[in-house]
């Protein structure tokens, strides 16, 4: 029955995309210049944040190990990030989304570099989604490793076909379907976990961070008086930075903001959808909190509830697949779109549909190559962890340049990017044991990521003010 339902979901959504695309086919000249008629952007936003929570486990891990103050910082940071994007959209009135992206990147070398950095980060993010989906299939759902590899690759190809056939129309429409799947999964799991909740509530100390995680510099006490402020601040920068650096979030905010009909209400709905997963996580965290020891992570532990009944298992498989498809598609499509818009002017003489086909097939090929190449290491969360740095770098460049890469001196984006990436690479390889499985201590790379953000942001501000003065 599980296989039948998964098949029905996948084939049904493929048919939905096919007929939707037949009704609104892609334009030959501007296949991704679609701003009208995109439904419910909040659904996609919620699915993306849920993916960070359930698939990546990043937000979930921070909630469990550092506590609710850090999670509150993530939630507030998400709001701040969306508000920043909205401000940038409103500062550029009457621009279509493509015009908005071009105004952020500019027409010069800085913009092309920033565009490539953003695109590359999104493609690597998509590859990390494949790796983590495969890992969860093996450890939590009991699939054989080789079966999980084919499962993840097949889902990735299906997600790619959504984008190829229908572009943004397809992604936004399937986001709604996937959002419903995710909500159904949460409802089933919450129902299952209900009996464990009482046990979780009986255990005290849920407001304190564990020793050894996000400790305030200069103090050895895990819960120094400054810890809540420190944890909240780290969470805020992380939550905001992720959304500022995500062009799929720009698209959703632009869709809402550009539409003058009830734009404020729709933006509030988008924000609520973005923080919804945090509130739905609370019962799961309370139930699972005592069962995640420090050190090597047993992914099966927090997800063991998924196999306790066949209905929950069905819901879990569909929900995880849906969550993956939503995030994977958003990352791949937004990476392709930014890549196309940041190409050199002489390359834009090609018909856009040709460039779109080359770019999207190249994106799938490179994403899957990275996926296949990283099947070997025991830690399938390495790439996702590493991406903290590039996301922080992109967010810092965009925030520090005031949303206009051209305001920075020519060539500075390249040098700042190289500085940031090399520094992060050296830190990451020294800090994280690459030959070991995933550990809980990997979230301790977040403070370094926030530091990278602060440094690049400050440098960008200084360079920008110098350029403006000149």
């Amino acid at each position, binding site marked *: 029955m599980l296989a039948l339902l998964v098949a029905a979901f996948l084939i049904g959504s*493929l048919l939905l995309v096919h007929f939707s695309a037949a009704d609104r086919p892609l334009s030959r000249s501007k296949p991704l210049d679609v701003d009208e008629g995109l439904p419910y952007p909040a659904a996609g936003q919620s699915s993306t944040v849920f993916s960070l929570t359930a698939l990546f486990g990043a937000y979930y891990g921070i909630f469990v190990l550092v506590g609710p103050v850090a999670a509150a910082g993530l939630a507030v940071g998400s709001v701040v990030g969306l508000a920043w994007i909205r401000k940038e959209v409103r500062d550029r009135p009457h621009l279509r989304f493509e015009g908005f992206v071009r105004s952020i990147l500019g027409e010069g070398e800085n913009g092309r570099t920033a565009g490539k950095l953003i695109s590359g980060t999104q493609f690597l993010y998509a590859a990390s989604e494949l790796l983590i989906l495969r890992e969860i299939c093996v450890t939590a759902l009991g699939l054989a490793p080789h079966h999980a590899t084919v499962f993840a690759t097949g889902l990735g190809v299906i997600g790619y076909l959504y984008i190829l056939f229908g572009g943004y129309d397809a992604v936004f429409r399937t986001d709604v379907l996937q959002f419903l799947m995710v909500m159904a999964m949460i409802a089933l799991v919450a129902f299952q976990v209900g009996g464990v909740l009482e046990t979780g509530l009986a255990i005290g100390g849920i407001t304190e961070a564990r020793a050894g995680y996000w400790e305030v510099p200069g103090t050895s006490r895990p819960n120094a008086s400054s810890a809540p402020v420190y944890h909240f601040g780290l969470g805020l920068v992380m939550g905001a930075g992720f959304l500022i650096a995500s062009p799929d979030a720009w698209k959703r905010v632009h869709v809402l903001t550009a539409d003058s009909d009830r734009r404020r209400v729709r933006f509030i709905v988008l924000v609520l959808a973005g923080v919804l997963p945090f509130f739905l996580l609370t019962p799961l965290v309370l139930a699972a909190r005592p069962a995640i020891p420090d050190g090597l992570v047993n992914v099966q532990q927090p997800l063991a509830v998924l196999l306790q009944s066949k209905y929950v298992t069905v819901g879990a498989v569909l929900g995880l697949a849906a969550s993956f498809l939503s995030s994977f598609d958003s990352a791949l499509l937004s990476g392709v779109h930014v890549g196309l818009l940041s190409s050199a002017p002489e390359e834009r003489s090609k018909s856009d549909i040709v460039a779109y086909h080359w770019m999207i*097939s190249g994106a799938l090929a490179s994403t899957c190559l990275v996926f296949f190449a990283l099947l070997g290491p025991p830690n399938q969360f390495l790439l996702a962890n590493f991406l903290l740095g590039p996301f922080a770098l992109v967010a810092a460049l965009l925030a520090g340049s005031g949303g206009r890469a051209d305001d920075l001196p020519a060539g500075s984006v390249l040098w700042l990017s190289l500085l940031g990436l090399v520094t992060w690479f050296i830190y990451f390889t020294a800090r994280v044991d690459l030959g070991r499985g995933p550990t809980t201590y990997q979230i301790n790379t977040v403070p370094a990521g926030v530091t990278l953000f602060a440094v690049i942001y400050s440098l960008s501000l200084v360079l920008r003010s110098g350029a403006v003065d000149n």
Partner: protein
Amino acid sequence: MSEFLKQIVGWLADEVEGEETASALCAYLLVPGLVLLTAAFIVGDQGLGAGLEKPLAVARIQSAITPGGDPQTGSGLVMILEPTDFRFRLPLESTDRAGAWTSLEPEVLKADPGAVQVDSTGITANAPFLGENRPVAIVTEGSPAGKIQLPGRTDVLEAWRLTSRRSSNLMFTVLAASAFGFGISLARFRSPVSVKKKHGDGEVGGQKDKN
């Protein structure tokens, strides 16, 4: 086979009329097809010919339960062998009791003495078995040496561990859905090319120029 390949290459050469069609061919067919083939090739240790399922599944016996008694440590192996061309040897650490139970009828074993052979150092099997077209179960006592010997190579026994049917079902479901999507992709690529050939204008991959 070579004629078939020549026909495919000829068809591709006819279809690719310029960069627009080449890019569509790449996006709709080549890249997704290559990605799926690569995944299947990576995981299919015997290549595509044997498919994605191994002909042998092994489960270790680690305990013994007697009526009314406590569970005790046991040591043995259960092997499920598909009715396909497959030959292997499983080395076992020396045991005083060399023997095996199979789901084959005694007459089959008598007629084909080399089908299943057991000694104190291991067990050898040669499939397919005469007159048997269903999977065969073999149970033997003894501690496995952790490896399996195949024609021309040795593999770790862990790679041949019995996997759940849910695992196979989910994998084949996604493969089937991918194949379905690939079919739609082929149709979307194919039909506008024929429109273009007829009318010399219009769509690629289903796209219309909105402008």
